[in-house]
């Protein structure tokens, strides 16, 4: 399969008076055209920052460096602001977690979609509006023509997320990043949005990067899975392989936490907490929470290595000495 995007050794650090702690520590990943990559991990593990880095959208105070960013057969190692602007909304789009606050409250919904057509396709006002109504129809907004004239506060959460998806997909990007797209929504609405994403992905031939803390949700959608912990990818491989036979103790822990229908007894949980990025443990960042930790884990951070058809960063699978 053709590689759409490859990212090598991404670092994201925050500038503070006490030093510049790293929130993303050397993430490398590839996206193959047409696939869905699930990126999972606890909150604060750096998965959203990794996604924002692909658009140059990091918040003020954060800086990113990467050895390589290749997208659409072009190198973007040191993208300029103009480079980013030419990618955003046209080639790479993102849907955020907060549908309730992500739309401009004083601009008509249709105008917020039309804006993208005017910007990237140079459409005139009326043509852009018509295209906007079409797009709203496509994401399942009923009575789109009249709804387009309304303001965001007149939309429900699910409708707002549909609108944000319409904005993201208006210019038929190659890559859609969905960052916790359903976390803020009701369970029934969640299912509808996921169904919509699946349908649009098929219709438009999208590549999808689905970010979530919810392994169960990602399992429904993804072809491949990347598990992040404390700013690093600890395991990455085909969904079936990783879920069927998780190698990294953290992945196993996450899987054990999934509730199962009919299961007896207490729900399992991972002991301990995600370490703060300013106070990362020496060696493997996961070792204080790991039941299998041994001497080496406290000394050296394991690298991602090929293990049985997937990549794992854990000393249990050959220390490489």
């Amino acid at each position: 399969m053709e590689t759409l995007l490859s990212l090598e050794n991404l670092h994201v650090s925050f500038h503070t008076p006490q030093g510049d702690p790293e929130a993303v520590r050397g993430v490398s990943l590839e996206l193959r055209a047409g696939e869905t990559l699930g990126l999972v991990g606890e909150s604060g593990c750096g998965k959203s920052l990794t996604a924002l880095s692909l658009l140059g959208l990091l918040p003020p105070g954060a800086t990113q460096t990467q050895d390589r960013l290749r997208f659409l057969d072009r190198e973007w190692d040191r993208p300029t602001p103009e480079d980013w602007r030419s990618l955003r909304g046209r080639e790479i789009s993102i849907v955020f977690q907060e549908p309730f606050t992500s739309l401009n409250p004083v601009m008509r919904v249709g105008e917020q979609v039309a804006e993208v057509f005017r910007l990237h396709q140079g459409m005139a006002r009326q043509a852009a509006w018509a295209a906007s109504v079409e797009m709203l129809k496509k994401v399942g907004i009923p009575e789109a023509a009249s709804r387009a004239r309304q303001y965001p506060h007149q939309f429900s959460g699910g409708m707002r997320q549909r609108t944000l998806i319409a904005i993201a997909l208006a210019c038929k990007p190659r890559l859609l990043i969905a960052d916790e797209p359903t976390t803020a929504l009701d369970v029934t609405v969640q299912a509808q949005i996921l169904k919509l994403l699946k349908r649009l992905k098929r219709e438009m031939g999208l590549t999808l990067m689905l970010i979530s803390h919810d392994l169960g949700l990602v399992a429904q959608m993804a072809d491949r899975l990347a598990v992040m912990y404390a700013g690093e990818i600890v395991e990455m491989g085909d969904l079936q392989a990783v879920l069927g036979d998780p190698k990294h103790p953290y992945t196993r822990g996450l899987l054990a936490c999934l509730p199962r229908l009919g299961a007896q007894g207490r729900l399992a949980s991972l002991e301990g907490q995600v370490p703060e990025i300013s106070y990362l443990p020496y060696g493997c960042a996961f070792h204080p929470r790991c039941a299998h930790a041994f001497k080496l884990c406290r000394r050296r951070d394991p690298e991602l290595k090929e293990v049985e058809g997937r990549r794992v960063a854990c000393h249990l699978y050959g220390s490489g000495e």
Partner: protein
Amino acid sequence: MLLRYALKRALFSVPLLLGITLISFLVLHLAPGSPVSARGSLNPHISPESIRELRALYGLDKPLSTQYWDWLKRCAGFNFGDSFQDRQSVLSHILQALPATLLLNGVALLLVFGLGLPLGIFSAIRSGSPLDRAFTLSSFLAFSIPAFVLALFLQLVFGAWLGWFPISGFSSPWSMGQGWLAQAGDVLWHLVLPVWTTAFGAWVTVAQYMRNSTLEVLSQDYIRTAFAKGLGARRITLRHALPNALLPIITLLGLSVPGLVGGSFIIETIFAWPGMGRLGYEAAMNYDYPLVMGVVVMGAVLTVFGNLLADICYAVVDPRVRY
């Protein structure tokens, strides 16, 4: 729909206005001294007879409730009575003083918002820069200077020492009979120091307000959405941030309406500016009850009107406001 909302709001402000006039009326009459004592008690030759006649002339012999009722009845017909001092109608006094105040505060308001809003936006966009920090620091200094201190300082430096601008007054005697251009220039020249004093504190307030409002809006999720669309910083600022950041400024504008017409007692008195503020101040010093009440009613109506206007503007501009 909007009209009904406006009418409803206007109707609700009637009791408020009545309350304001009642309290002003009471305070005015409870204050020690009276128009009669101001004219009579300093004159040893005045007879009790004459005092009684004076009181009857002014209607001060009637009970307070009757006096208020009479005043209210007259006001209903837009007749605010005559000044005790020169028997001219209160309305004509106000109409004479109004243009000067409108000019002074209109120019000041234009400067305040015309300069304050851009400075605030700029400061927010460049937040944390040396320029922004310098502005924040200097605005605290500027904000803590009271108007009367600033007024006297400007008079001393630019009026007395440097002699660049006239210290007080509305126009120079020599400009009478000159061409209108010379007259207008003369008034503008007199306007500089009072406008400076009026605008100074407000300018800084508006700029700080706009800065904070813009900063808050810039951190909102929908601004991130706008960036994710690929829009440029300029369009995001003008099209997405500005309309949202300006919403709270509407209140500030509404609150400036009474000042626009009401005038400032302090600034107009210091600069001998023949406007509403000085009119009210002099009326109060002379126990000119009808004139004081006229000025007070004017101010109250405008305050209520300004608030009403701000609320209506909100309803027009912000689609989330229900009415």
